C-alpha cells in the first residue's frame, strides 16, 4: 500500500513537471503532440481491431465446432468480416502516415 502511494506520488509529480521536459525543444508548438497522438491513435485502432477480430474469430470457430459441414460458407464470411474490421485499422494507419510523414 505504502509503495503504491509512493508510486502515485511520483507519477503526480511527473505529471506536474511536464514543462521541465519541454525545455530546450525548439520544434513547432503545433506539432509537438503529433508523435504521441499518432502512437495513441494507432494503439487504439489496433487494440479495438484486435478485440473485434477476436470476437469474429471466436464466433466462427464456435459455429464450426457445432456444425463442421458449414465450413465453406463460414469461411467466406469469416474472411470478409476480418477484412472489413481490419480495413478500419488500416484507415487509421494511412491517415497517421499521411499526417506524420511531411513533418520529418
Amino acid at each position, binding site marked *: 500500500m505504502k509503495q503504491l502511494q509512493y508510486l502515485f506520488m511520483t507519477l503526480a509529480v511527473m505529471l506536474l513537471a511536464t514543462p521541465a521536459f519541454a525545455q530546450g525543444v525548439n520544434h513547432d508548438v503545433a506539432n509537438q503532440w503529433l508523435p504521441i497522438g499518432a502512437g495513441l491513435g494507432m494503439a487504439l485502432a489496433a487494440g479495438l481491431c484486435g478485440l473485434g477480430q477476436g470476437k469474429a474469430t471466436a464466433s466462427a470457430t464456435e459455429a464450426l465446432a457445432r456444425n463442421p459441414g458449414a465450413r*465453406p*460458407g463460414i469461411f*467466406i464470411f469469416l*474472411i*470478409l468480416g476480418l*477484412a472489413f474490421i*481490419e*480495413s478500419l485499422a*488500416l*484507415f487509421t*494507419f*494511412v491517415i497517421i502516415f499521411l499526417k506524420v510523414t511531411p513533418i520529418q
Partner: protein
Amino acid sequence: MATQLLFTRVLNEHLAAPVTALLQAFHVHPANPQTPITNAFAMELLVFLLLVAYFALVRSTLSVEKPGAAQHLAEMTHGFVSEQTESIIGHGYERFSSYLTALLLFILVSNLMGLVPGLESPTADVVVPLGFALVTFLYYHYHGVRSNGVSYYKQFVGPVWWLSWLLLPIEIISHFARVLSLTVRLFANMFAGDLVTMAFFSLVPIGIPLIFLGLHLGVAVVQAYVFFLLAAIYLSLAVAHDH
C-alpha cells in the same frame, strides 16, 4: 528521387526518351524526364510479362493424355475460382471467371513479388491498387447494366419512392466508398508489411525480421483472396435479379 531497381533502370536506359515524349503528347509532365518509369510501373510490367509467359506456356503444352505441371496448376486455379464464384454469384458465373482469374493471379503475383530480393510489390504503391479498384468498379457497373438494364438504376433509389432523396446520396457514396476501401485495404496491408519488416530489420538485423517476412507471405495471399472475393461479391450484387 527514389532508388531504382535493376529492372527499372534497364527500362529507363532504353525507353526513357520515347516514354517521356509519349507523356508530353498527353500533356503529362513527369517529375524526372530522364527516368519517367517508376518502380511500380516496371514491376507491373514484369508481372504482366510473367503471367503472359505462364499462360502461353499453359496453352502450348495443353494435352489431354499427359497434362504437365503448368497445366495442373492452371486447372487448380480454374477449379478454385469456379468453385468460389459459383458459391457467390451462382447461375451464370462462367462469364466472369476470366476477369476474376486474371485479377486474382495479377494481385497474387504482385503481392508475392515483394518477398523476392531485388524486386518490390507494385501494390505497395497506392496508384496500383487504385487502378485495380477502378477497373473492378467499372466492370461490375457495366455488368449490372448489361444484365438488369434500366432497372439496375432502380437499386440506387431504394424500395420506396418517398425515401429516394435520402437513399440516392447514400447509395452513391457507398459505391464510391467501395473503391476507397478496396484501394486502401490492399495498399495499406502491403505497405505496412514492408514497413514492419524494415522496422524490425533496423532493430535486429538478423533472424527476427524473417518472422515478419513469413507473416507478410500470409498477408499477401489473404489480401489477394480478399480482393478477389470482394470483386466477386460486388459483381453478384450488381447482376442479381431481385424479382
